[in-house]
């Protein structure tokens, strides 16, 4: 497997508090990789560190083998890494159309068929109807669709998805997860941070489990047993009980 994006002994944190202690992570083109772990395990921190939102050393993150760690977020976008952030983070006061346009106007050079607003609307038809609505008037699920659309319009080669199912009705979660294969179908790699472990296992080819800032399990999603996951998820001492 060729590696698109990887981290090497990545350490990061907030102020004096270190949240990640040496993460080795890799993802190839078109691959879907899930990151699971309890709250505070460091999943979001890892995405933020990759995205350049936290200070890290240059060689801790590589894209196509080139060091990109600590580059400004907008530079990461331009080199093909985009994020669907936790909490959606839409631009309040702007319409659905404007939110999407900001992203497409600052996108990376597309590889293959570029994402257009039209294609995003085909993926989530409800957004076409709401194009002129200010985003704060949308439902949570619709807001999540805008956020994913924004991520896609950045024309990423790797899309980092931070808890895109959080707070949504099961039907909406299914709807969103159903479109993900269309994204990876054209070679975009997906990193899914997901609370729902079985959903993460089903949606991904490989998964990493984080515990207290360290990777405790890594492997093919289909091959990993429930026992392995719960041991990795809660820590060895807990599993031995």
């Amino acid at each position, binding site marked *: 497997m060729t590696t698109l994006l990887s981290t090497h002994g990545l350490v990061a944190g907030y102020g004096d508090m270190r949240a990640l202690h040496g993460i080795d992570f890799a993802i190839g083109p078109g691959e879907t990789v899930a990151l699971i772990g309890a709250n505070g395990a460091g999943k979001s921190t890892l995405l933020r560190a990759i995205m350049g*939102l936290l200070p890290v050393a240059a060689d801790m993150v590589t894209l196509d083998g080139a060091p990109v760690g600590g580059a400004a977020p907008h530079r990461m*976008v331009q080199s093909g890494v985009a994020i669907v952030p936790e909490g959606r*983070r839409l*631009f309040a*006061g702007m319409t659905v159309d404007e939110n999407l346009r*900001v992203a497409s106007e*600052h996108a990376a050079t597309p590889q293959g068929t570029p994402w257009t607003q039209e294609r995003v609307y085909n993926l989530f038809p409800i957004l076409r109807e709401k194009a002129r609505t200010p985003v704060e008037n949308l439902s949570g699920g619709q807001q999540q669709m805008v956020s994913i659309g924004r991520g896609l319009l950045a024309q990423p080669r790797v899309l980092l998805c931070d808890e895109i199912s959080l707070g949504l009705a099961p039907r909406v979660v299914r709807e969103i997860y159903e479109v993900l294969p269309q994204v990876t179908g054209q070679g975009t790699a997906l990193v899914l941070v997901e609370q729902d472990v079985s959903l993460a296992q089903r949606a991904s080819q490989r998964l990493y489990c984080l515990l207290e800032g360290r990777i405790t399990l890594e492997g093919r999603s289909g091959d990993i047993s429930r026992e392995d996951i719960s041991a990795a998820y809660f820590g060895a001492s807990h599993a031995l009980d």
Partner: protein
Amino acid sequence: MHWIEGIVQGILLGGLYAQYALGMALMFGVMKIVNVTHGDLVILLALIGISLADLAGIGPWSVLATLVPIGAAIGWLLQRAMLNRVVGNDPLPSLIATFGLSIALQNAMLVVWSANTRSLPGGGIQQASVEIGPLFVGVLPLIVLICATLLTGGLDAVLRFTRYGRSLRAASADVEAAAMVGVNPKAVYATATAIAVGILGFAATFQAMRSTVAPADGPFQLIYAFEAVIIGGLGSVWGAFTGAMILGVSQAIGFRINPGFGILAGHVVFLAVLAIRPQGIFQRKS
């Protein structure tokens, strides 16, 4: 009659204040910072313009055409070299840094241009007036008002309909999220400050033509800009424009009641708005 004349004079004065206020509203809207040198930059540009007219023998409109790009360059430089370092949640660093710069700038102007008041010769346009109904209205103040209206409309259109405007609104809504979709906040900020100080090029030319300027006048222009922005309500350029009109009218009417009360009337209206409608006149909710 007396009062109508006062109101008209006030609106015309408001045209000048609107040109101060636009840039401040823009900068606060996107960065949540106040550039304390805002007023001093008006004076600096005006003094540069006056010296330019003196040395190169150019007319006021050429001065205007020169000052706007100079202002934009100063603004860009100010943001790149200084303000980008202090943008953030804590208001203290940006305030104190620009406060210090303001003192340095005022005194540097004092060294270069002395404390004398100066003005920009307008080639007779200052005396021209037109008859509108029963009133005589100065041509220059009318030009200033029209210019202010066009600048406000233009800035509003830029914010609504251009790629830059969208990126600026995105950055003011959530700067980190904007960076995550590829917007470079520092570039957006630098352009915003360039626009803000570029507009001050208009304000400087007209201020120097309409009345006089001296190195220590800057704080007053800063305060007028600030009052206009707060009266009108934060976050909208037309709000700042209308706030400037209300400030101008308050001062003009106050001046008619008692010449010593003119400026104070503006402050009183500002405080009254803060007491009664703190979100400003044109903001829907706080």
